């Protein structure tokens, strides 16, 4: 597996090329901002009929991460559904796929701003979750440390030989980890924006995710 291993709060963690975070000692896989059902919500609210395959694409990716890591626990760090109606509207085959992924493991839905209520898909629903000394929540809390969050969809831009390349990234400093959006139809927020700059203390790193099966590349977080 082409992950980037790093130490956070004394624990050994791995950033996967897909944007998932793996904690080997706990056999825990964490993904954030799946935004399942986005195309359904866009069709409902805006009348645009985008290719309705993003739920399938996102679950396919999640399935291959789960196959590769064999986790005991899976945490979906909030905004797992684009809204609660999208969760309800999920087609039967996607529900089956999800049920297969959840079978035999501890599955936690952390609530996000897009999906504040429980869904009828099984698993545990929580506002946040603390394991050992690490807390998993949707939105970073500036007053806290030892936390893993999502919400901001961080991405970073680098310029190499006159080419500007922009990729999703995992942000890491001494106090927190911010995961990128895992969902297929998601955009991002450049990490040099004030919202993210204010949250991260130097020496913060941005672990760039170049693409599927490509090893993540840590760089100093662009500000």
């Amino acid at each position, binding site marked *: 597996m082409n992950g980037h291993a790093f130490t956070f709060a004394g624990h050994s963690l791995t950033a996967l090329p897909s944007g998932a975070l793996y904690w080997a000692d706990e056999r825990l896989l964490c993904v954030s901002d799946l935004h399942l059902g986005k195309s359904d919500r866009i*069709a409902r609210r805006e009348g645009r009929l985008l*290719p309705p*395959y993003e739920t399938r694409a996102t679950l396919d990716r999640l399935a291959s991460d789960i196959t590769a890591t064999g986790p005991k626990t899976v945490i979906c760090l909030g905004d797992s559904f684009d809204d609660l109606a999208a969760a309800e509207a999920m087609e039967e085959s996607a529900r089956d796929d999800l049920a297969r992924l959840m079978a035999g493991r501890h599955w936690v839905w952390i609530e996000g701003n897009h999906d504040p209520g429980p869904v009828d898909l099984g698993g545990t629903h929580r506002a946040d979750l603390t394991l050992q000394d690490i807390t998993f929540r949707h939105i970073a809390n500036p007053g806290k440390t030892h936390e893993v969050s999502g919400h901001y969809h961080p991405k970073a831009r680098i310029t190499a030989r006159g080419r500007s390349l922009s990729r999703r990234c995992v942000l890491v400093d001494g106090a927190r980890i911010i995961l990128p959006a895992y969902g297929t139809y998601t*955009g991002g927020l450049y990490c040099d924006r004030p919202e993210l700059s204010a949250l991260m203390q130097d020496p913060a790193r941005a672990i760039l995710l170049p693409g599927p099966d490509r090893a993540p590349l840590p760089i100093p977080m662009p500000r």
Partner: protein
Amino acid sequence: MTLHDPAMSPDLPPAVEGWFTARGWSVHPHQRQMLELARAPCQLLIAPTGGGKTMAGFLPTLRELADGTHEGLHTLYVSPLKALAADIKRNLTAPVEEMGLPIRIEDRTGDTSSHTKRRQRADPPHILLTTPESLALLISYPDAGRMFAGLERVIVDEVHALAESKRGDQLMLALARLSKLAPGLRRVGLSATVEDPAAIARILARNPDPCTILEADPGPDPDIGMLVTEEPPPWSGGGGKYAIPAVLEEVKKHKTTLIFHNTRAQAELFFHHLWLINEDQLPIGIHHGALAREQREKVEAAMVAGELKAIVCTGSLDLGIDWGDVDLVIQVGAPKNVKRLVQRIGRANHRYNAPSKALIVPANRFELIECTAALDAVRARTLDGDTDHAGPLDVLCQHILICACAGPFAADDLFAEIRSAGAYTDLDRATFDRCLDFCATGGYALRAYDQWQRLIRRPDGMWTLRDPRRATRIRMNIGTIVDADKMAVRYQKTRGGTPLGEVEEYFASMLRKGDTFLIGGKIVRYEGMRDMVVEVSRTPYLKPKIATFMGTKFATSTQLSDRILAMFRQDDWPNLPAHTRDWLHLQRRVSRLPERDRLLVESFPHDGREHVVAYGFAGRNAQQTLGLLITKRMEEMGLNPMGFVSTDYATLIWGLDPPGDPTLLFSRDNLIEVMEDWLADNAVMKRTFKASAIIAGLIDRAMPGAARKTGRQATFSTDILYDTLRKYDPDHVMLDITRQEAMRGLVDFGRIEEMLDRVGDRIDHMRLTRVTPLAAPLFLEPGRIPIAGLADQRLMEEEATRLLLTAGLVK
């Protein structure tokens, strides 16, 4: 003439006739003919600029409206430019008032206030002047039937410019709709000189109506030549900088000069260098489409007021706006297309029956040959004609949505109506149904949107918008021009924030603080980006660090390429300057000259690398595609290509190994196979997909400033949609549309195929020991494309071994 209606005499009402007489003018013969044939369902008038073309179009309308009995809209005038609509309004209103005719004339464009627009729908004028986009919007309203019910005539100006574009396709679909709303509607097309008037007539007329073609006296041959300079043109480059002193001399000798360039970047550079030696401070301005509107309007006003000696410009000045007293046109760089050249020259002269004067400045040695070929073509009056094409499906999808906004429709009726538009005559029902399904449900293999369909089929079989409120959103996306994402450039707020123009987002993304570049003839320093605006400051530097930004690159037309190849067959070239003549003779001696029915491939070592040159003469876009395909093939064959560069006539590839037998590389089957693989995952395809997806209504046009200010990408890249579709729904109609569009657009594979078919197995491989004369300029060509492949790896390994040896670490 069978269509001559004896009831319609060529006579004009006394008020109109008197107006002509009072000015000592007479009605031109072609204007009389237009009057005689005014009852024909479709007329196409081909006339040179300044030939009273517009008046010829309007005279029948004036005659029919003179008695003041017509109620409501009588004539719709459509032009490609809103500036032209405003111009015609002025030029038509004045005489109509002087004639004392009871005719109301108004224009309607993107600039018209919403209040006026509403009023125009309720109470339309007799003559409405508009653009294709504004017309598309008009037919999308449920009251279109009432507004257009009494419409008698529609005049399409500059139809030659529209005929080749999606804007023209959209317009013709709108006309199909108008013909249904107003049976008996007569169509008139006004065109500059074109090679194949019949092709334009086919697009203009409602199928199967006949179209009469009137060709006015084309006037005297233009006085056109090559600007001779003491210094020969350089071996490469496109700016024509060497000729600036000679150009300045010509500007001094004439009253007003237009100096045309093929790209904005070249216009900017030329303008900059021209001012560096403009010691007399001659008033010379610059005008191109990327400049801020304020900047352009200033130049236009100065031009109309006769305050400028010259304007450095691009195609943004190409269409028939009356610029006053231009007495010389200079074209810098080969015109790439003979028709464009002739039309540009037409700009020089708005006086009928006086020859227009023009000079071409070849930008480099090869262009000298190209310009000679272009001049021969102008003298022979042969123009390029590439107008026939099947109507694009993304435009069709948009039209279906527009019709749905206007009200419920039956699929059979709409299909028949669409097939009456020339470019869509051959549309088959299955394709139409696919497009309708795309508009209604998204057209996906996974039927996910039953609940949210955009169009639904009512029990009575009529199609209608599921939610009528969606019409607003559809209307906001009307139009077929999709620009690359642009960013505004302005001075920093502390320095007044004056807007300067815009650059492509791609270019902006490459800038770093302190970089200097040219815009609007000024060198500016990049300071940063704020709220999606590029902020710059003034700089004392004389030399911009980054010379150019992107602009349209035209490919040389097939006709011009053929003429060049025909020239190569001559034994000698007495009409070329000695330096160029010697160059061609030398090429023939050491290698050979390219021929039309053969493909010349040269290979030679140079500077430690192996080189291959293919002289395909297929135009820049196709040669570029050829470079990508061949290098991909070479990579597969282990030939370690490292990069390539393309011009309109050749592609130069360099790498670590000689090509072996190039017939394998260039075989048709081989290339088509590579093409299929390569196309799928290509940036050109993604760009094409985005444009077509916007036109077809899959995604929204980016509204300026919307959603992006927060920096939060509420939207995501359209590349993701393309990748997802390819993976999960590879047969989707949008992917077919993308492939079709790319093949005839940026990829231009059509011209490669045409070349391969023509050449067959007649590939001449010349293995040489050094660079050939014809290949030499290619080494200086900008725009080299590196291949990130196995060659990199091998170079690194070789270098590592060399370093270890040098250090004595390995024996």
